[in-house]
């Protein structure tokens, strides 16, 4: 019994004329929205301006990147003349005073390397007892 009464209460709706009017208005608005076309200016923006702007930004980025990573070119130097001969000399150390108690090994004080280059240049490298040039 109370269920039927509840259904009866729930079945009430706005006036049919009002329903028809509001539904019709909603339909007309929806159909009008389907006929909307994007404005030409927006189309142009999408088709040309945005890609052009993107290309300019890309070019600027590439230019900046290349500038940052550029390596300066080295000055040209002619190749060194080849070595014609090389000689190693080890001058004998001065005679040391012999100790009766202890025999010390002989110590080389100097080492010389003589180079002769093909253009006549002579080069002398001298190494000391610590082998530094």
């Amino acid at each position: 019994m109370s269920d039927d009464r509840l259904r009866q209460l729930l079945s009430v709706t706005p006036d049919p004329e009002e329903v028809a009017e509001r539904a019709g208005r909603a339909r007309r608005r929806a159909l009008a929205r389907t006929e909307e076309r994007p404005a030409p200016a927006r189309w142009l923006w999408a088709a040309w301006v945005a890609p052009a702007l993107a290309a300019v930004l890309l070019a600027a980025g590439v230019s900046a990147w290349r500038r940052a990573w550029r390596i300066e070119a080295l000055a040209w130097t002619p190749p060194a003349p080849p070595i014609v001969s090389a000689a190693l000399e080890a001058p004998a150390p001065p005679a040391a005073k012999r100790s009766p108690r202890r025999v010390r090994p002989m110590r080389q004080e100097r080492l010389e390397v003589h180079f002769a280059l093909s253009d006549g240049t002579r080069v002398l490298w001298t190494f000391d007892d610590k082998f530094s040039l």
Partner: protein
Amino acid sequence: MTSVAAIEAAVAEPAEGQSAELVARARAGDRAALEALIVSVERRVYALAWRLVGDRAAAEDVAQEVFLKICRRLDRFRGGNFLGWVYRMVVNQAHDWRRRAGPAAEELGEVGAPPGFDAAREEQLRRVTDAMRVLSPKEREALVMTDMEGFTSGEAARILGCMAITVRVRAAQARKKLRRVLARHYPELREGV
């Protein structure tokens, strides 16, 4: 009093075949067929939207969005029950409206009735609308589909995307809550009366 049956009788709902034909023509680009298709369901769509959101202006917005979706998504309709497909969209759109409106939606009072309204019916509408605010959205959907739109729980379940038993339980809970609230104005709704 105006009942749902009276509105439905006033609406010339197309037969299944006629609806299918309109859909086919509308898909082929026939604008008149598309409009006729929407006209065939517009009052039902508005009535359902009003029952789900409980507000005349909001129901109009919901109906408008549903009509727009019909226009744009008709290619996705895979045949069968066109009205069921539309009702699913109404339910989803009403859900979206509630989510967007947030808690403020529950506070909205009905916008004034149009001139020449039936005062007794408007009073009953206001009481029912106010009472339905105590329902959760899911309970409201279940109650509207079964008790107000006249669907079986199985049909309502297909539209709402849940199980039939769930629809029955939610509708029963909704009835219980409504009876308790409306009993203040309608003592005959009290249990055992």
